[in-house]
């Protein structure tokens, strides 16, 4: 990939609103009140079980504060990727308006890829506003793919993520018109190659300017955007590292649930604690569970989770029944939930790891949690939700009634979206990362461009490490 030369180069990350350095656009320090989160501390480990940081307060891992999580959010929100080679091909053949459409008489030849540098310079020029100069356009595969990032001055005033995509698409359009001196009658054709059939369709159907998040016109509900990333994308971006795929998925799900209104008041601790244990390998729980049960079964992982939760004070025996069965109670419901969700991920890694077949993720989720319920008398992960979602996800990935393989699902899918914090998507991401090639719709098939483009950001490829390390940027502030 090559980086274009721009005027006044600056890191695209500095100076934008919400800069990870902890200051807003007016220079005021971003503060999160310590609150309950700060009372809870965890130790953070790598994906291979090596200690990174000890005793990290949860408050420093909240998405609104943690610098690496903020980088992930801003990068996803403000970046669009353009299939420039695809646009060239569409225009050459007249394949406008989506699959199977071809409009005779609308074909024309533009050497877009050969002129990629000039086009990128044009986009940069158009998107640069006076206030900031951090618009960036990066080229991949010799100009076949562009990654366009809108400047912080623009993104800071957009109401939603749609702005970055629309701005990128229109800047690209103007840059091409300028570069090739297109006549007016070719403008609609060019536009159809960029944004598809919009606004006849409510989405950008058939266009070649893409975004990781779906358009707001097709969201299932307010604030869902971060929940619309398909499972395969996480596997592709992290190059099929199961721990990091789960971490990236858990991060975007938490962002989405925050935005949907789910993680406030009494649910804040519940959501963040579960996130760090399940997705960030807090206290090395997930890694330890997998390591200790790597030759075992789903049932073995359940036993181990219960033992650890009891030992670490999340649950305790309430009473012993006549059969000798011990009924448990939750001393710390949020912590029990964190263990149960982390255990679900570990069970998926053990069972899918054994078979190297992603399809097993769904029933593993269901029956791992079934085992927790039967063996403790307590609600399993996410107040029974992961059990229920595992069951229905299993149905819809194994039958004629809809759905598909785990890789094409996203957290907003009407079938599976009912987790309080999106705790099922990390399981799906880990499963697709571990799959050896048993699925039809693999990350290689659906997400190779996404993987190449976003995988170049280290904090997206290895979020566990970078989220942990970025704590140092704000510790003590």
């Amino acid at each position, binding site marked *: 990939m090559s980086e274009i030369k721009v005027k006044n180069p600056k890191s695209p990350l500095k100076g934008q609103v919400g800069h990870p350095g902890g200051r807003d656009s007016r220079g005021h320090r971003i503060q999160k009140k310590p609150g309950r989160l700060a009372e809870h501390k965890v130790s953070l480990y790598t*994906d291979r*079980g090596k200690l990174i940081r000890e005793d990290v307060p949860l408050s420093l891992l909240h998405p609104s504060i943690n610098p690496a999580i903020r980088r992930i959010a801003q990068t996803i929100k403000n970046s669009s990727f353009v299939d420039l080679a695809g646009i060239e091909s569409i225009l050459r053949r007249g394949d406008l308006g989506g699959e199977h459409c071809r409009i005779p008489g609308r074909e024309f030849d533009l050497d877009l890829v050969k002129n990629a540098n000039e086009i990128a310079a044009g986009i940069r020029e158009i998107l640069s506003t006076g206030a900031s100069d951090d618009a960036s356009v990066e080229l991949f595969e010799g100009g076949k793919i562009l990654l366009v990032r809108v400047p912080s001055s623009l993104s800071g005033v957009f109401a939603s993520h749609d702005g970055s995509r629309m701005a990128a698409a229109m800047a690209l359009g103007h840059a091409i018109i300028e570069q090739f001196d297109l006549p007016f009658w070719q403008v609609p054709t060019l536009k159809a190659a960029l944004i598809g059939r919009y606004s006849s369709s409510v989405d950008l159907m058939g266009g070649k300017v893409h975004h990781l998040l779906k358009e707001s016109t097709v969201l299932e509900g307010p604030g869902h955007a971060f929940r619309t990333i398909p499972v395969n994308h996480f596997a592709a971006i992290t*190059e*099929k*590292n*199961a*721990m990091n795929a789960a971490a990236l998925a858990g991060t975007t799900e938490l962002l989405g649930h925050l935005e949907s209104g789910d993680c406030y008041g*009494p*649910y804040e601790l519940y959501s963040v604690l579960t996130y760090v244990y399940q997705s960030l390998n807090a206290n*090395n*729980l997930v890694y330890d569970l*997998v*390591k200790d049960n*790597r030759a075992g*079964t*789903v*049932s073995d992982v359940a*036993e*181990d989770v*219960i*033992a*650890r939760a*009891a*030992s*670490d004070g999340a649950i305790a025996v309430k009473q012993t*029944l*006549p*059969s*000798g*069965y*011990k*009924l448990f*109670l*939750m*001393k710390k*419901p949020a912590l029990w939930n964190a263990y149960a969700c982390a255990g679900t991920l570990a069970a998926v890694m053990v*069972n*899918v*790891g*054994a*078979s*190297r077949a992603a399809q*097993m993720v769904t*029933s*593993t989720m269901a*029956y791992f949690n*079934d*085992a927790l319920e*039967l*063996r403790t*008398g*307590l*609600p399993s992960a996410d*107040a029974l939700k992961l059990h229920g979602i595992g069951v229905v996800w*299993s149905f819809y990935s194994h039958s004629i009634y809809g759905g598909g393989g785990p890789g094409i699902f996203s957290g907003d899918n009407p079938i599976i979206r009912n987790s309080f914090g999106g705790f099922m998507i990390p399981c799906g991401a880990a499963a697709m*990362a*571990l799959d*050896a*090639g*048993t699925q039809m719709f693999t990350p290689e098939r659906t997400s190779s461009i996404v993987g190449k483009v976003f995988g170049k950001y280290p904090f997206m490829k290895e979020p566990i490490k970078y989220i942990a390390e970025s704590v140092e940027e704000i510790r003590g502030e």
Partner: protein
Amino acid sequence: MPKKKPKVQFNPGTTIVAENNRKICDPSCEIDKVREVSMDDVVLLLGHRKPGEGIPTVHPPLDEMGEPPCPIRELVEPTPGARAGDRLNYVQISDAYHFSPGSPYPRARKYFSRYRGVDIGVLTSRTVIEMRERELEQLVRDELQSETFDSARTTLKGITTHGVAIRLDQDGLLFDALRRVKYNKEKKVVMYVKDQLGVPLDHPISIGAPASEENLKKRALQYHRANIRYSEESEMHLAIERMWQLAQLMGMNPDKAAGK
């Protein structure tokens, strides 16, 4: 992190139904073998390939293909079928409502306790199991030989599985729209005349004599008015109702469920 392993428990309950469920979920308990079935017969009954044929693969062997660097792949050993690249395949087991020694949920728990790399769906009239094909064949053989499979009231049905709540036929066999099994009155055994997909077999395969209903009732994994009534299992009620209540409280405010 220190870890104390308490005595393992599987489910509440004082009746024999609860005991039977515990037994099959506990990998340290032996499941009784009640008949012998050859691996060739298993392959024939599954109908996915012929005995002696190689198992088709969906990807190259892992050692040949190489795997991306991943800590979980490094920790978790793939099963032999995964390592070889076997396709995934399925079996469906259908249990009569009327005193079959197996039931879908207990089956799922049994397999998740005793096998690696297993994918199970539970319905009323069937339990569908998918695994890498060589592991699947081994599981099916274990199951066909086990006490949780009755030749009359449990049937391998790869398709058209409905009918577990229908009355048994006059020979005491589970209803089957595809008539895969027949009762041999002379030998007093149940014979498969078709494979699980309903394709006629070259020769019938005996699956042994059905157990008596008295025997089956002792091995029951589900409750029944004419055997162990659900109303007798008060520990289970307590556990279920408590879990139901706690989940509601957690939904409103997780802290409200603490200590209850």
